[in-house]
Structure formats: structure tokens, C-alpha cells
């Protein structure tokens, strides 16, 4: 049993590391190895989801490595491995011979392996392990084409932003230990901590999750992450990295609620992100940027679900979104390499250029729009039912965000289904790349029944969250009707931009200026502080030491000049005095006997006098 679980995480991690270590020499083997590992991983994940193994190994003092697969982890593991397989199939069909394929496939495997560690982790240290490695591999993947300074910078932005949020997990670990009741730091026991540590743990976990999931106000890194290769975006936005934060919140469900304030913060951050990033998505003129903003918005629904206690809805949203979004990014990538652009205006008629890819894109975009009877429609209503129980305003915000999804999806569709423009340099989309999209398109359709009884009850049982509110029929009808109306209106208005004041429109197109704000408010001051610290180091601390040394030297010179000379003068004076005395002492030595006699008499007289006086 435990071998299964170790194999599940080890297969992608080890094969990925080996590919990376082999380097360019393994370029020809890389697609095959990557696909083999991804296939094996999918099989292992399915097996693990059914058998639900657990395993442990000693790691730190009292903090073992514990991996466990329960219903939630099992579904996530299957999603992760499935999405990895789909993305790798697509990249194997599409990647050129000159590419550094060993590096690409190796990093993709590491990336997906670390996501698997994250979703199977049963304790906080292990989760953090997978969590941070995932961040680092995303850096390497976004900066895959490292010769371009822009991409290198984007990779740094993504890693630093997510790591800033990750600090929350480091602090949460320490606070959970200090809070007591959970010496092994298991994820399930995080809410056992005493106050005030409980709030500390909650804050740490929530911040880390929101950062990883690109929620407000840290959404901007996802816009930059678009500069990575399209297959990277397809995986990063669907089943790894971005959804890791939502997963963490769904996993630690009782924790935010236990603190008394966490669930509201989580739910409303999710709703606010879904709304505002939905508006951002509507305002984009670049397909990949539109999709990226929609990822933030759709992940916002999952976060909302976690905050509203609608675990089943959140998980179904996650899985359905993974299928739709990976497909959308893969097609966008295919169009980018076939037509040389990702700007919506220039993508007119792209769907007609390669009808099969266009059809797949349409299915996924309609799913994203939340149209009935596609899977995201049902999943979203499931989680909005939880929001309705929490409060009508949360439900209204969620519904408004759902309408925005319909608007931006219809906008993308409108452009790609325009009559084609002549494209002299266009290349066809390779057939293998299109074929690999079929399972994801099917998943977009096939997941819908899971949101309805009787399958819904089974899913809820697997996830260990029975008794969550199910939507009433009017809720399903309302959301389907709203989505359809919004999509139809957008289509009818020829996807013209919303009539907004110039400043607002620019703000939305520029992702609410979040990155500029982070640069102004954080990065700039830190860099200035660093420069000041360096100047302080050189001008004050180091100079103080040098001054001390100089002072010692000056003291030595003073000793040499003043003290040494005066001592020497004293010695010379003593010598001179002695010499003078000696000269005087020579005076009596005349060599004449009578004088000696007188001296002797005088001396004896003196002696006698002394004797007499002393006695």
C-alpha cells in the first residue's frame, strides 16, 4: 500500500530529476520518458484514489514525512496526473527538435510531482516541501526561454510574489507547534491550536494560499507568468500551482472557521477576486491575458467555496476548470505557433483556420462561460448554494462574477469565429496536437452529472463532506439564464469593450495596476532600504573599524613622538646626571696622601658624630 503512494510521488520527481541531470544528451528520449512517467503517474493516481493508502517516514524531530490519500487528495491526484498527461501529449506533438526538451519535460515532471506531494501531504512540513519546489520549478518553466530578459524577469516576479506569501506557511508551522495539541503538525489538526496561535496559523495559511492562487492583491504575478511556454500555462493554470492555494483552503476547511474570522475573509477575498479579475478579463485584448485573468476569477470561486464551506462544489469547480482551462491554453498555444499571434484582434477566424481545434476551444469556452449543461455551470451553482446559505450578498457577488465569465468567454469566442482574414505565413495546427485535446473536451461535458444526485451524494461521501446544501432548481435556472443572456448580449454587441471611463478601462486592462503598486509600495522601498543599509555598512560600521585602527596608529605615533621622546629624554638626563656626578666624584681623587688623610679624618669624625647621636 505505502509503496503505491511513494511510487506516485517518486515516479515524476525522479524521472524529472534524471532528465534534468542528463541535460541535452537526453533531448531525444525526453518526450518518451515524460509521457511514460505521466502515464504511469496517472495509473498510480487512479489506483491510489481507490485504495487510499497512507505512509510515513521519519524526517525531523517529531515531524515525520506523512503522505496520505483520502477522497479529496485522490481526486486531486487524478486531476493533476491527468492534466499533466494531456499537456505532455500535446507538447510532445508540438515541440520542435531544436528545443531543450530534456529540460522542458524534466521540469514539467518535477512541477507536477511537487504538486502531487502537495496534494498528498498529511503534514504541514511536507506540504511546504512540495509547495516551495513547485514555486521554484515554475520559475524555471516561466523562464524556460531564458535568453529573453523579459521572460527572466517575469519568472522572478512570479517566484518572489508567491514566496512572499509562502512565508505565511513557515510562520504557520511555528505557530501551530507553539499552539500545542498538534506536535506532528498534521494538516487535519491545525485547528487544535490555542488562541492567539490559532489566529496566527490561520493568517499564515490563508496568506500563503491566496498568494499561490493569485487572489487579490497578489494576482499580478499570473499576468507575467503568461510569458512562459503555452503548455506551462496550461498546467500551471489548470491543475497545479494556482489551484494549490484553493486546494489548501479546501483541505484545511475547519481551520479558517475555527478562528472565527478566517472563513469570512477567505470567502469575500474569493468573491472580490472573481468579480474584479472577471472585469479585468473582459477588458483584455490578448487571448492569453484574458485566460490568465479568468483563471484568477475562476480560482476565486474555489476560494469562495472554501470560505463558504461548500467543499464539494469547490472541488468540482476545480476539476472542471482544470479540464477547460488546460484545453484553452493548449489551443491558444497552438494558434500562437501556427498563426504567430495571441492578440484577439489578429486571431479573427482562428477557429475556422483549424476547425477541430476551434471546436475543442468552443466547448471549453462555453464551459468557462457557465452555460448549461456544461460542467462549470453545475459546479458553480453547487458552490453558490453554499454562498447563499452564508449570506445573500455573497451569493449575489458570486452570481455577478458568473455573469462576467459568460461575457469574457463569449468575447473570446466572437473573435475566433469571425470570418477569417488572409494569412500568408500561417502553418497548420498539427493533427497529433489536436487529438490530444479530445479527452479534456469530453471531461468538460462528462463532469456535469457529478453535481446532481445520486452521483453528488457519492462525491460528497468520497470528499467527506455530506450534508452541504444542494442548489434548488431555480438557482440552476437562474444562473443558466443569466449566463446565456450575458453571452448572447456580448455576441450581439460584437464583443465591443464595455462603455467605461478611460481611467477605469486602463486600470482594468492593466490588471488594476497591482504590479505597479507592489513595485511602488514594496520593491522600491526595500531596494532603497538595501542601498541605505549598504551605505551604512560602508560609511559607518566599516569606517568606525577603520577609524579605530587609524586611531590606534595615531596613538602609536603619538607614543613614538611624545611619550617615547620624553622617556628617552629622561633616560638621557639620568645618564647626564650620573656622568656629572661621576665627574664630581673624581675631584677628591688627587693622588696626594695628605689630602686622603684629611678626608679619612673627616669621614671618621662624621661617623663618630652619627654613632654618638644615634646611640
Amino acid at each position: 500500500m505505502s509503496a503505491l503512494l511513494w511510487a506516485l510521488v517518486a515516479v515524476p520527481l525522479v524521472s524529472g530529476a534524471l532528465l534534468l541531470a542528463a541535460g541535452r544528451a537526453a533531448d531525444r528520449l525526453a518526450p518518451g520518458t515524460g509521457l511514460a512517467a505521466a502515464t504511469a503517474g496517472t495509473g498510480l493516481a487512479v489506483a491510489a484514489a481507490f485504495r487510499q493508502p497512507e505512509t510515513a517516514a521519519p524526517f525531523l524531530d517529531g515531524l515525520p514525512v506523512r503522505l496520505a490519500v483520502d477522497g479529496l487528495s485522490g481526486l486531486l491526484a487524478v486531476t493533476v496526473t491527468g492534466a499533466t498527461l494531456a499537456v505532455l501529449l500535446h507538447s510532445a506533438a508540438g515541440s520542435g527538435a531544436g528545443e531543450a526538451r530534456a529540460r522542458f519535460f524534466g521540469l514539467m515532471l518535477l512541477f507536477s510531482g511537487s504538486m502531487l506531494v502537495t496534494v498528498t501531504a498529511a503534514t504541514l512540513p511536507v506540504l511546504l516541501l512540495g509547495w516551495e519546489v513547485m514555486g521554484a520549478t515554475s520559475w524555471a518553466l516561466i523562464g524556460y526561454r531564458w535568453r529573453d530578459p523579459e521572460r527572466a524577469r517575469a519568472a522572478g516576479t512570479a517566484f518572489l510574489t508567491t514566496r512572499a506569501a509562502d512565508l505565511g506557511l513557515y510562520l504557520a508551522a511555528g505557530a501551530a507547534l507553539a499552539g500545542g495539541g498538534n506536535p506532528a503538525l498534521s494538516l487535519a489538526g491545525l485547528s487544535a491550536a490555542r488562541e492567539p496561535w490559532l489566529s496566527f496559523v490561520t493568517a499564515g495559511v490563508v496568506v500563503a494560499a491566496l498568494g499561490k492562487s493569485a487572489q487579490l492583491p497578489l494576482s499580478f504575478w499570473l499576468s507575467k507568468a503568461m510569458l512562459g511556454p503555452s503548455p506551462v500555462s496550461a498546467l500551471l493554470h489548470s491543475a497545479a500551482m494556482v489551484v494549490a492555494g484553493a486546494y489548501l483552503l479546501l483541505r484545511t476547511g475547519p481551520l479558517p472557521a475555527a478562528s472565527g474570522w478566517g472563513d469570512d475573509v477567505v470567502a469575500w477575498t474569493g468573491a472580490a477576486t472573481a468579480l474584479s479579475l472577471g472585469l479585468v478579463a473582459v477588458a483584455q485584448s490578448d487571448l492569453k491575458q484574458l485566460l490568465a485573468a479568468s483563471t484568477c476569477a475562476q480560482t476565486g470561486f474555489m476560494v469562495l467555496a472554501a470560505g463558504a464551506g461548500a467543499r464539494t462544489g469547490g472541488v468540482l469547480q476545480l476539476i472542471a476548470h482544470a479540464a477547460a482551462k488546460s484545453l484553452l491554453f493548449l489551443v491558444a498555444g497552438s494558434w500562437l505557433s501556427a498563426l504567430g499571434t495571441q492578440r484577439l484582434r489578429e486571431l479573427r477566424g482562428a477557429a475556422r483556420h483549424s476547425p477541430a481545434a476551434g471546436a475543442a476551444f468552443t466547448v471549453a469556452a462555453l464551459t468557462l462561460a457557465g452555460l448549461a449543461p456544461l460542467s462549470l455551470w453545475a459546479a458553480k451553482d453547487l458552490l453558490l448554494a453554499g454562498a447563499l446559505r452564508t449570506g445573500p450578498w455573497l451569493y449575489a457577488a458570486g452570481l455577478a462574477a458568473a455573469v462576467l465569465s459568460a461575457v469574457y468567454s463569449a468575447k473570446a469566442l466572437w473573435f475566433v469565429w469571425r470570418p477569417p482574414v488572409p494569412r500568408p505565413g500561417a502553418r497548420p495546427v498539427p493533427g497529433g496536437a489536436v487529438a490530444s485535446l479530445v479527452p479534456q473536451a469530453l471531461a468538460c461535458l462528462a463532469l456535469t452529472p457529478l453535481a446532481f444526485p445520486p452521483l453528488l451524494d457519492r462525491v460528497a461521501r468520497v470528499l467527506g463532506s455530506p450534508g452541504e446544501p444542494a442548489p434548488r432548481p431555480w438557482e440552476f435556472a437562474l444562473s443558466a439564464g443569466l449566463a446565456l443572456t450575458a453571452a448572447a448580449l456580448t455576441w450581439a454587441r460584437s464583443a465591443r469593450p464595455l462603455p467605461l471611463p478611460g481611467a477605469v478601462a486602463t486600470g482594468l486592462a492593466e490588471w488594476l495596476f497591482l504590479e505597479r503598486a507592489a513595485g511602488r509600495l514594496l520593491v522600491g522601498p526595500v531596494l532603497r532600504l538595501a542601498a541605505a543599509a549598504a551605505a551604512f555598512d560602508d560609511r559607518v560600521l566599516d569606517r568606525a573599524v577603520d577609524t579605530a585602527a587609524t586611531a590606534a596608529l595615531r596613538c602609536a605615533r603619538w607614543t613614538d613622538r611624545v611619550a617615547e621622546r620624553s622617556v628617552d629624554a629622561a633616560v638621557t638626563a639620568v645618564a647626564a646626571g650620573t656622568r656629572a656626578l661621576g665627574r664630581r666624584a673624581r675631584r677628591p681623587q688627587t693622588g696626594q696622601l695628605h689630602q686622603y688623610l684629611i678626608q679619612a679624618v673627616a669621614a671618621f669624625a662624621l661617623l663618630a658624630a652619627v654613632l654618638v647621636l644615634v646611640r
Partner: protein
Amino acid sequence: MLTALVFVPAAVALPLFALPRRTPASVVRWVWVVVCAFELALVVTLWAGYETTGGLQYEQRARWIPGAGVGYHVGVDGLSLPLLALTCLLFLACALYSLRETRRVRELAALFLFLETTCLGLFAALDLILFFVFFDLSIVAMYFVIAGWGHRQAGRAALKFFLYTFTGSLALLLGFIGLYLAAAPHTFDMVELTERNPLAGRAAYGAVVLLAIGVGLAVKTPTVPFHTWLPPAHVEAPAAGSAILAGVLLKMGTYGFLRIAMPMLPGSWRRWALALVVVGVLSVLHGALVALAQTDLKRMVAYTSVNHMGYVVVAVGAAAATAGTSAQARSLAVTGAVTQMVSHGLLTGALFLLCGVLYERGRTYDMASYSGVAAVAPVFAALTGVAAFASLGLPGFSGFVAEFQIFTGSLGPRPVATSLAVLGILLTAGLFLRALRQVLMGPLRLPDGPGTPRAFPDIRAHEALAVVPLLGMAVVLGVAPRFLLDVVEPASRTVLELLAR
């Protein structure tokens, strides 16, 4: 066996001078490598025979200056064994790295072997005067390494290093004498001093002795504000010298905290622990911030040492708080501190050797002179990338194991200080990513030689032989740290028991 481990390198170093002057340099180089490999094998044997249940082992005593209470007394426990192993590994790496060295090889080899003896002797010493002697001799040997084989301004930097750390060692000696005088009968033996706790109940005396010892060790560690000797020494030192200086010599300071200050002055340590935590946090943040402002790669790495050693100081300070914290947390903090010493030794050693590789090809450490080096030297770029990510505390490498333990163990006792110190890993992430982006990524640009473009060959076999095992060890410690922690954990519990007296 321990005595052999300590003195074999010095014993080989002396006859090296007896060799005729015409002896080919290659003979000397290989003697150097073989001795270092032998030392590593010896320390592995020691480790294999070490009982993980704890306590001092391989103890040896000899009469030395009995009249003054000074004896030759060596032994190892879970605090010193990892550092002995680290020392042997780093010296072997430096010997391999120097296989292409051409300047006065015989002298360099002899000096490094002598330096190895002083480092091993210090970590094995169980007598304060023996400790002090090795402490000072290591400064002397390192002075000659920097002055003799360094870059342009080496003389000045070496002198600054020597005078600063030597002054620190004098403070240390004063503290030792204070301990000696307090013990009855007078002795310098560490084991006896630890048992007797001579300054229990004498707060003022204890504080003065702790101040003297603390300043002496803080200069060596180095902590803010006693760190300004470090950047010039590193920038001017040859790569192998820098690797040893940062990898081994800095550990002497923090090792002294764990070996001498904490167990021998438990009362004073607990009373003044907050000051240490403050100094530690200042070192973490100041070191990281100043490193972020550097344009010189080697100077940047040097400042990250201040940052990384700051975590150790935070941990040993936080571990002193007894009230309201679990024993597990404190044990994690101390174990994390020892792990951090080993981890920093491996990673900073690797980073300095890689800096040396870069300098050897481009003749400058200025980051702005390079761009896109990955295009011409992919293996070098990969190794540098791995070393940088390991150094910024990525899980899967030893730095994470160390820093996670430190933060998790220190947060309970010192929440504010630890929350501030955690920012350090974000700053280091920023500065390493910036350095990688500047030097390795982007369009290719290399500093020109006089008149002609310089060739920039990828990493050579002997350089890779030196760097790869260090990084490999960091991975092993990051993935399967039990073999190290099994040794360290009993020792850190012992230190904490002694501290709680």
C-alpha cells in the same frame, strides 16, 4: 584515532617543505588531495563507529601544562562530529579545486593542510586553551592564504581580517580566564567547567564573562556589527580560501556558542538571550539587505553568510527561553542551528568555488559585466542555479531542513523576532534570483580581455569534482537528513538540559 585525524595534515605539511625544490608541482597536488581524501575516509570511519545515543566519544587526554590547569583533551559528540565531517569534505573539495593552481603550490598545500589541522583541532578540542590555540592558529594560516594567493588588495584585506579577528580572540581569552578563575580548583577543561557551572549565582561576573566570550565569538561568526572584516576578506581571498573561510572558519564562532557559552554559562545565557536574538535578527536582515545592494557577486555571497549565520544566532538565542515553550520546539531550534552550520558550509563553499570559476574566466566579479553566461557554460549555469536555489532555502536541499527547524522552533519563544527573521529568506530569494538573471540569463555578454574577447569554457572536470559533491551532499541532507539529525538531536537535547540548570 581522533588525534590522528587532527594532526595527520600538519604532519604531512612539514615534510612537504623538505621535498627538493625541483619536485614537480603535480606530486605536491596529489599528496594534498590524497591526504584530504584520507582525512575524509577517517572521519567517515569515526562517524560509522559513533554511538548515536550521545555523550562524548573518542576522548583522549594527555598532560600538557598541568600547573596552569591546561591539558590536551579531545573528543567528539553530536555537535562536533558533523562539523569535523564538513571540514574534511570542504578541504577535499578545495584540494580538488586547486588541482590547476600554479602559484607556489608547495606552500599553498602546506598551508591548507596546516589550516585543516587547526580547524579539526578546534572542533575536537575539549580544553579552553587548546580551543584558543587552534582558534588563533587558524587565523594565522588564513592570513597567509589571503595575503599570499589573493587578488590585488589582498594584503590590506588580510591584515584587516587578522587584526579584527585576533582582537576578538583576545576578548575570548579574557572570558576563558574569567571561567578559569571562577572554577575551584582552577581548570581550563571544558568537561569539568560544564559540569561545575562555576558562575552559577554570580550574575555580574557571569555577565562580564559572557560579554567577553560573546564578543570574541561574534567577531568570528560574524554578527552585525562586527562583520565588516568579512566582505573585503572574501572578495580578495582566492576561491578555495573563501570556501574554507566561510565554510569552516565562520562555524567556529557559532560552534563556540553551543560548546562553551551555552553549557558553561547557562544562567547568564538565559538572562541575556534576548540580546542575542536581537543581534541575530539584525544580522539576518542587515546581511540580506546589504547583500541585495551589492553589484559584486562575491561580495554579495559574502553578505549572505552574515544573513545565514544570523539564523543560527537567532536559534541559539530563542532556545534559551524556557517558559511556555515545548521541549520539542527548543530542540528543533538547536538542531536546526547545527544543521544550518553544516548546510551553510556546503552551500557557501560551493557558491564561492563557483564564483572562483567565473572569475577565472572573466577576471571580474562585477555582475553587470556578464549576461547570458548559460549560453556558453550550461553546466556551470546549472550548478550555479542549483547552488543559489539551495542557498535561498529551497526544500529538497539542506538549507530548508535547517531553516525550517530554526523558524518552527523559534517562533513559539520569540514570535516577533522570528517573524522578522523569516523575511530574510524572501530577501535572499530576491537577491539570488536577481544575480542569476543578470549573470546567467538574457543575451550573451562577457567581459572582454585586453584587446580580444575572452574564451569562456564551461566548468572543467576538477572544478566539477569539487563542486558537485558539495551540492550532492546538500541534496542528501535535504531529502534524507535522518543520518545527520540522529547524531545532532541527542547532543542538542544535552545542551538544552545543561542550559536549563
